[in-house]
C-alpha cells in the first residue's frame, strides 16, 4: 500500500504495510538511520521523533497513524547541526557511545517546544529515555544550557 509522508519538510512516498511502525519506515525504507532501534517496546526512547512538534516514540507508531503529521527526525532538526540542543550536546560532551542520543535530543526538542524554560526537575521528569552509558546527568545540563541560551 502506498503512503504519503511529510518527513523533515519533504514529501515522501513509501510502499508499506500500514501496520509498519514509523521507526522501520524511516530506517529501512527512507534510509534515515539517525533514528535508532533500542527496544521496540516504547521503553527506551532511542526512536524518538517529533510528530507535529511533539516528541513521539516511533517504534510503536503504525504508519497508518502518522497521517498528515509532520515528522521531524534528528537529521531534520536543523540544516547544519546548529540547533541549540545540538550545540549544547557537543559543548557538554553529553554522548558516550552516543547511540541513544538522537532520541534524547529529539525528546528534549519536544520538551523545549512545550516548555521553553524547564528547570532540572522538569527536564528529568519529561525525558525518560534510557541510556546504558550514564549520559543522563550531562543530558540534563545540556538541555538546561540550550534552554538558557535562547
Amino acid at each position, binding site marked *: 500500500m502506498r503512503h504519503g509522508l511529510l518527513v523533515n519538510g519533504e514529501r515522501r512516498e513509501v510502499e508499506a504495510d500500514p501496520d509498519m511502525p514509523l521507526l522501520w519506515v524511516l530506517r*529501512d525504507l527512507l534510509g534515515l538511520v539517525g533514528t535508532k532501534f533500542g527496544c521496540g517496546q516504547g521503553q527506551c526512547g532511542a526512536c524518538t521523533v517529533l510528530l507535529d512538534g511533539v516528541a513521539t516514540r516511533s517504534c510503536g507508531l503504525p504508519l497508518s497513524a502518522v497521517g498528515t503529521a509532520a515528522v521531524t527526525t534528528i537529521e531534520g532538526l536543523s540544516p547544519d547541526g546548529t540547533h541549540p540542543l545540538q550545540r549544547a550536546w557537543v559543548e557538554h560532551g553529553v554522548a558516550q557511545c552516543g547511540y541513544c542520543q538522537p532520541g534524547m535530543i529529539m525528546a528534549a526538542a519536544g520538551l523545549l517546544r512545550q516548555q521553553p524554560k524547564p528547570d532540572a526537575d522538569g527536564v528529568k521528569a519529561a525525558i525518560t529515555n534510557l541510556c546504558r552509558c550514564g549520559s543522563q546527568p550531562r543530558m540534563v545540563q545540556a538541555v538546561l544550557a540550550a534552554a538558557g541560551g535562547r
Partner: protein
Amino acid sequence: MATGTLAPLGRRDFLKVVPLGGAALLLAGRLPPAEAAEAATFSPHMSIAFDTTGAVRLTLRKVEMGQGAHQGLLTLAAVELDLDPARITLVQATSDPKFGQILTGGSYSLAGGWMALRPAVATARLMFVQAAAARWGIAAEGLRTADGAVLHPDGRRLAYAALVADAAKLPVPDAKTVPLKPADAFAGAAGAGHGSPHAAVATGAACYGIDQRLPGMLFASIERAPVVGGTVLGFDEAAAKAVPGVVAVVPLAGNAWPTLDHVRAGVAVLAENSWAAQQGRARLAVRWDDGPRGGFDSDAFKAAMAARAATPGIGCRREGDLAAVPKDARRVERTYAFPYVAHAPLEPPNALAWVRDGRAEVWTGTQRQRRLHDALVRELKLAGDKVLVHAPLLGGGFGRRLEVDYGLEAALLSAKVKRPVQVLWTRGDDLTRGLYRPASVHRLVGWVGQDGRVLGHAHRYVGESVFRQQEPQLVRADGYDFSMAIPFATYGYDVPALDFDQHPMEPQVPCAWWRGTASTTLQVAQECFMDELAALAGTDPLAFRLRHLPKGRESSWSYMEGGAVTFRADLMRGVLEAAAKAAGWGGRAGVAQGIACGLYDCPDTYTACVAEVAMGGGTPRLSRLVVATDCGLAVNPDRVQAQLVSNAVFAFASLTQAITFRRGRAQQESFADFPLPTAADLPEVEAVVLPSTRPPSGIGEPATPVVTAAILNALAKATGRRPAGLPLVG
C-alpha cells in the same frame, strides 16, 4: 573522526561501501584512497601515515564504544607529533592479520597506547627532524618541532608534508631509542573533543553497525532456542513466508554447546525490511527440543554454589597463617550472592555480512575484530586472507561485543542466501538469548583483635569460570581461572593472615565478560565485608580503612606468571581522603553515608566512593554519589570524568538487575523487568579526578564495584540491614 565526513574504504579487492547517514570514521586502513595512493607516503609504522598533501592518518586498533579511547589515543599521537589533532584522520583497524589479535577491553586502551602508540608516532617525528636536518645540513640534535613542522634555529620551518619523501628514505630507528614527550606535555593538551563522535552523534550522522547498508541486502530476525543447547524440531515456514516482504526462511543448526564462539540453533526469517522479518518470525511457531539444559534453575544453582562455599577451593592468595589468629579475636562471617546480569547495550547486537565468491566481509560493532575473523575462517572454511571484519562505532559494549555470535549468524545466513544479510537482535533476544555475567556466591570470614585491627581474613569465591568456556587454553590443569583471582591480587589492606580461594564452576548458561566481571562481585563483597569488620572493631569505616592502609606501604601479589599487581597504600589513601573530603564525610542530619574503595588492574586505577542515603520521608533514598579516582595521567580529563559517572550509573543500575532462569529459560524479556535508570531515578553524581603524572591507567570499568559497595554500605547504615548481595529486593 577528526574533521569532515568520510566514507569508509574497502580493501581494493573488497567491496566499497558507503553507509547511509554518513560515517564516523574510516573503517578500513589497508590502502589509502586512490588519490592519496598516487602521492608519496611516509609510514614508519602501521599506525601512522603521512602524505605530501598534509594528510595524516592514524590507524587505531582500539574501537570506540563511548569510553573515549579514540579521543585519548588521538591526543597522545597529536602531542607526540606536535600536530593539531584536527589535521589527523582516524582510521579504524580491521581484522587484517597485520594488526594482530586486537581486543578492546579491560580498561587498557590508554595504558596500552601510552606504551606502544607513542613510540610508534614519535618515531615519525624524529625522522622528520632527521630529514630536515639533512636538508639544512645541520645537526638534528636540538631541532624543535611545532604545529606540524620542523623549526630551524634561524626561524625557517619545514612542514612535515614537505619532508615526506625524504623521511621515507631514512632507516626507521628502533622505537625503544626514540625520545618521548614528558608526561606533563599531555596535561591539558589542546584539541580536546577531536576524535570523539560528539558532533556526528548530535546530527544523527554517527554510523553504527546497525546503520550499515549494502545494495540488495536482506534483513534477518532469528527465533533462537530459548534453552542453550536446544535444537529445532519443526516450524511453520509457510506462515512466515505469507508475510509480505519475507524472502526466505532459513534454519540455523548452530554449533554444540558449550563450545567456543557458540551460535544457538534457531530459525531465521529474511525479509526486505526489519519489520517484515520480525513479523514473519512471530508466525514461525518453532517447536524445540530443549536438550539437557531444559531443567536449569538459577535458584537451585545458587543453592548449589552456597553449598560449595563450605568446602575449600583452589588457593588464590595465601599469606601469613590464619591458624595463628589468637583465640580471643572476634569473628564475623558473611555470605553474599550475586545474580546473572545482562549487558543490554542500547544498540542491540547486529551484524551485516556478505559472503560470496569464497570471501566473507562483515561490518559489525565488535570489541574483537580478529576473534570474529578467526571464527569466520573456521565456520565458513575460508582462507584467512578471504575474510575481513570492519568495526564501525559501537552503541555500547560492556563486554557483550567481545562475543562473536551475532557476526557469525549474519555470515552463515549470507552464505546460504548469497546476498548481504543484516542480523538484528531484538531487546528480548538480547536479554533472553544472550550471554551473562556469571552468578556467584562469596563466603567471607574475618577476625578482629582486641586492638581493633583485622588479624585474619578468608574469602572464598564460587562462580562460573568465563575462561573455561571462552579461553580454555588459559585455564590451569586444576581448573584455576586467573581472571577470578585478579580481584584477590588487588587486595591491599595490611592484614597479617589472608586465605583467598576460588571454586571455578562449569558455566551453566553462556557466560561473558561484563564491565569488570569478577571484580563486580568479588570487590563488592570485599568492601561490604570491610564495613562488617569495622563494625566489629567499633570504628568509623573510613578511619578503619585508613588504619589498614599504612602510609608508604607497598605490597604486590602475582595471580599468574607475568601477572603481578602492585598496591600502593598512599594512592588508595589519596582517593579515600579525596572522596571523603568532597562528600563531607562524617555526615549531616538525615543522611547516612557509606564508603568503599578498590584497585583495578588496568594496570593500576584507584577509586573510592562515598554514597549518601537520604532518610527523610520514611523510605531511604540514594541521594548522592561522590567518586574519586587516581587513574594516573588523565589524558582527556573530561572523558575520565564522564567515565567515572558512567561507572557510577552502571553500578546504580545493577542494584535492581538480575537475570533468572526457570526451565532453562531467562525470565527477563524487556527493560520493564531488567531496568535501566532514567535521569529522574539517578542520584547526584560528582566525579573527582586526582592529578597525577603516573602513566595513564584505565577508567572504563574500575569504579563500578566500588560504587556498588559504597551504596550497599550506605543502605546498611540507613536501614540497619546488612547487605547479602544483589539484587536489592523491596
